[in-house]
């Protein structure tokens, strides 16, 4: 078998593994890690009806991973009766964020303008974070639906980060860093994050230093969080496909190394 054939075989194998496991539609109850437990406890411990900013800092490409994470966080926050203020620091997070908040709010009978509001997208994320520290209404004179923010009931007592208990950044990249560097360091707002698995190690130093209060990551994090909430969801349903793909990759690494050592032995 030449290298081109072996590559095509590896591609076909991955396609079959993911397709079959997705079709099986089996949910996996993931063992809860300390990291996810810490995030759950942190959000669970916030006083009732706290004002919380949920920032949709991700793009459409990572939606299969970010949507289950966003859903569990929103479900938890709505279940605890918090006041949610949705914003998006990336343009693509705008439509996704509004749709997610709207759908989840319906599940918990929450009313727009009284229990939650979506302010939409503001370009230049650093400027937006700094500007909200001075005035949220000044940064977003209108919400996503075109309502004047000064007339929205929920925002009548929320002027800047002093009136916000926490920011939860849903990020697939480094945007949470800006929330930490500008939101937390300059204005003292508490920041936590739900991030793509590939970004977990990036934020470890911030967790260790306490600048990031808590973090949950990846599809596995979403499945663990669903487990803690006691609800089913797409995190647990997708875990079998992800775990099987991981095992398949491990198998490929082993085959690649066995072939390498055999060829080296032959000289």
């Amino acid at each position, binding site marked *: 078998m030449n*290298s081109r054939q*072996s*590559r095509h075989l*590896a*591609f076909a*194998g*991955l396609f079959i593994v*993911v397709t079959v496991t997705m079709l099986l539609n089996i949910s*996996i109850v*993931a*063992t809860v*890690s*300390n*990291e996810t437990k810490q995030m759950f406890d942190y959000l669970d411990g916030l006083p009732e009806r706290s004002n919380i900013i949920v920032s949709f800092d991700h*793009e*459409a*490409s990572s*939606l*299969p991973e970010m949507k289950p994470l966003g859903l569990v966080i929103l479900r938890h926050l709505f279940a605890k009766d918090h006041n949610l203020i949705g914003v998006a620091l990336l343009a*693509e997070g*705008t*439509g*996704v964020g*509004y*749709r997610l908040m709207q759908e989840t709010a319906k599940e918990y009978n929450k009313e727009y303008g009284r229990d939650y509001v979506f302010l939409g997208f*503001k*370009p*230049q994320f650093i*400027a937006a974070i*700094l*500007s909200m520290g*001075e005035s949220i209404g*000044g*940064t977003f004179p209108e919400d*996503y639906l075109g309502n004047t923010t000064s007339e929205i009931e929920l925002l009548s007592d929320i002027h800047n980060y002093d009136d916000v208990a926490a920011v939860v950044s849903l990020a697939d990249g480094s945007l949470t860093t800006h929330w930490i560097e500008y939101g937390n360091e300059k204005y003292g707002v508490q920041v936590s994050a739900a991030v793509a698995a590939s970004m*977990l*190690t*990036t934020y*470890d*130093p911030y967790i*260790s230093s306490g600048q990031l209060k808590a973090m949950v990551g*990846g599809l*596995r994090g979403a*499945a663990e969080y669903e487990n803690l909430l006691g609800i089913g969801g797409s995190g647990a349903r997708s*875990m*079998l496909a*992800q*775990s*099987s*793909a*991981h*095992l*398949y*990759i*491990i198998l*490929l*690494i082993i085959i*690649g*190394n066995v072939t*390498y050592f055999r060829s080296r032995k032959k000289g």
Partner: protein
Amino acid sequence: MARLFPQIICGFFGVVLFVLYFLKAPSAKSLYLTITSDYWQIIFAFALLVGVASFIRVNIKKLSKLSESPYVITGLLGLFAMPVMALLWGIKGDSPFMWVFENVQVPLQATVFALLAFFVASASLRGFKARSLPATILLVSALIALLSRSDIFGWFGNSALEFSEWVRSYPSMSARRGILIGIGLGSVTTSLRVILGIERTWLGKDR
């Protein structure tokens, strides 16, 4: 003059924004809000216009090449169709703009992103070899990290998870901290060089 004027503007705003960042006076805060909330957005809008103009110019040039024309036409159609739909029907709820976003852009981007998994599969088979001791340590750590993110019916128990957390908490985090400190120092140095006019590459190659 073409070189001096942008440098003066850059240096001036660099110093002003730096000072405003630390001031607590209401007038300073108000000026800071105006710059970050209004001026910055205006600059962004102009930068966007430059980007759009450049995209159109580059793609129109490519139109003459028959092999590339289908992609160029699709790209240009998308560029013009989305703002037209947004202007005609808005961008909220069940608008055509949102339909295209959810049913065209999201699946396309997710597909391109998902292709990475196939590259990883190919690289795992052909490139990830235990050629030396450091490579073997990296390989074993990666395997355990992969196992820790998998959880098939509790087959791997907690040991893979615990080992993975140890790798993240010690070797990985110390390396990450070093990189972060390096980035921080590099950012400060570059900013100072730009503000003081020592770094002038941003003015273009002939400057």
